[in-house]
């Protein structure tokens, strides 16, 4: 049950895709493809925003510390002072963790939306989350006491296997593998795996443990996690940016992409590999934080058009900002009490998304 409504949620996304495909929404976006100046401006502004967010969120926390203490804790860490420990070992890793995870989910979402040509896609849609959760549930039920690193490997494996399975299933359909079939196969497979996970969890009485796993949160992030996480995520994002051109072409439609001389299947598979890397790594540390991958690329596209060379880096920074603030809210609404990160993301994300939807002028 963990994230109830998952099935319906996925099915709705398929429908949106179908409606969307009737029109070519990217036509007017094409005009925005030029304008590097605006992009640099937005990127600078976003980076500045990230810097401010980092500054504010590091400065304030459940424990009331003076600014000078906080920043001497960051730059002149003395392991014997309690306040330095608070800043260095609890606040800093969790904020950096939030930033990294936000980046990863946002970029994964952006790639998903480009590759599937579905503006409502995120990592949930190709069964990436469902696959990794399913394997994690299997591990809980049949191989308890697995070490953390082994569990991460299994979770990667689940995500990758599911993606391969969906690709194969999508290709089985009459005609070539296209974005629509991919999305539908993904949504249905995700729904099936999701219900299998629920069944196993209920049968083996694991369900509340899994609810926690699902709720998402960065409070437990440590420097050790960051040392593993940071290289994977940053490399994957660099890779993603380097593929931005191909993804933009693909997002214009398969025919167009092929006319432009793009190896469609290759780009698709590489894109999904990046997604598996990003999502697998961040889910293993923070759980499945929803909505970031859906909403952030939307904003980025609104700002700078449809060129994924620009969408991906901008999404990365915006995603980091969103999660930093969501985590900040989770800590600071009623300190020292804490709230679940996922709920905070939704609280920020839902109104904003509604605003976007209200502005949606199209009437089918």
């Amino acid at each position, binding site marked *: 049950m963990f994230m109830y409504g998952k099935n319906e949620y996925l099915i709705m996304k398929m429908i949106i895709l179908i409606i969307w495909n009737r029109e070519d929404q990217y036509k007017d976006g094409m005009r925005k493809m030029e304008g590097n100046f605006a992009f640099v401006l937005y990127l600078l502004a976003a980076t500045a925003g990230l810097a401010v967010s980092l500054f504010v969120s590091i400065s304030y926390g459940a424990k009331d510390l003076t600014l000078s203490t906080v920043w001497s804790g960051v730059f002149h860490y003395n392991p014997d002072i309690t306040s330095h420990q*608070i800043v260095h070992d609890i606040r800093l890793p969790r904020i950096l963790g939030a930033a990294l995870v936000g980046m990863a989910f946002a970029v994964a979402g952006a790639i998903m939306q480009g590759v599937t040509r579905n503006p409502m896609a995120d990592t949930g849609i190709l069964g990436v989350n469902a696959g990794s959760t399913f394997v994690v549930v299997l591990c809980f039920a049949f191989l308890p006491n697995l070490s953390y690193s082994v569990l991460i490997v299994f979770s990667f494996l689940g995500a990758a296997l599911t993606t391969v399975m969906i690709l194969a299933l999508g290709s089985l359909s009459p005609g070539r593998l296209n974005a629509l079939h991919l999305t539908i196969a993904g949504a249905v497979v995700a729904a099936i795996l999701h219900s299998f996970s629920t069944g196993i969890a209920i*049968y083996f009485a694991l369900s509340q443990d899994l609810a*926690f796993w699902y709720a998402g949160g960065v*409070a*437990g992030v440590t420097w050790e996690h960051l040392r593993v996480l940071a290289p994977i995520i940053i490399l994957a994002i660099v890779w993603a940016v380097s593929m931005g051109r191909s993804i933009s072409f693909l997002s214009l439609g398969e025919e167009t992409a092929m006319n432009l001389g793009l190896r469609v299947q290759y780009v698709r598979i590489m894109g999904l590999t990046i997604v598996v890397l990003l999502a697998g790594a961040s889910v293993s540390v923070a*759980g499945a934080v929803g909505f970031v991958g859906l909403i952030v690329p939307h904003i980025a596209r609104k700002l700078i058009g449809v060129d994924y060379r620009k969408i991906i880096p901008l999404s990365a920074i915006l995603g980091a900002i969103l999660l930093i603030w969501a985590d900040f809210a989770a800590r600071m609404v009623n300190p020292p*009490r804490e709230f679940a990160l996922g709920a905070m993301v939704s609280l920020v994300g839902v109104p904003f998304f509604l605003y976007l939807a209200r502005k949606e002028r199209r009437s089918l």
Partner: protein
Amino acid sequence: MKSKLSLIGVLALIITILSACGGQAKSNSTSEGASAGDVQQVDPNSKIASMSIHMTNNLLALGIKPAGSAIGGGVGDFLPHVKDMLQGTVKLGVVTEPDMEAVLALKPDYIFIEEQFGGQDRAKLEKIAPVVSMDLDQGTWRDQLKQVAAVVGKSKVADEFVKAYDEKTTRVRKLISDELGSNAKVMAIRVSAKELRVMSTSRPVGPIMFEDLQLTPAIGVDKIAEDEPYEVISKEVLPDFDADAIFLIVNDDDNAKKAYNELEKNPLWENLKAVKNNHVYTLDGQKWLDYSSLGQSMAMDDMEQLLAKQ
């Protein structure tokens, strides 16, 4: 038009059949079935079905093994710490979804339920055997135990149980003050996969720690709202509690254990007064979180063992 008429006909038929079924069931209930009434006395050696895990624990504390018992919903089985004592007992389903057929198959002499038990389910049980209903939400576990004991005529056993508990408590209190000195400030923490919970002074662990063992709550523990069993708290303020000893419950799942391993390695944790002085006691969570006579008594035993080991 024809189809409409036939549709109405079919519907009417269905309704008639259904009402017939319901009616039949009702007429059965009046003609047969044991009379319930208010059962005041129950022979402790009779075949008892307990439809609540709290009731089962109270019966076990009195030395009565029920022939059948409800199971815990979370674990889908008898609670781990009493499972050994319930060998041979029939599982009667989760309290919210009792397995009526299993109860019927058991053919119990009496069925023990809690007052809050669902109305329809109660009516069904009453047709199987006399139902003994008690309100186990009121009062302390001592009151609840005595209430059950009065019905099965084991009040003496209950008194002895409470007396034994009090003696144990006195011993443990002495062990604690030997270890921590008097007036030590104590807090209880529960670690789950994603959260760090500080337990409040109310149930389940408040009464045993702060009333029975007369420990002093660490700074801020008494500020947690009375009706909340715990509060989720930021690690940043752990040092502020300034606890001399920490009672620790780690949830029984892999993620929680990993979360605790991470916490243990954190310099902030390592520098807590209680950690430095080696005054962190990892409790057997199931016993401490079970606010029943048996659970609390087992929790006290757990504490005694932990201190004896030191």
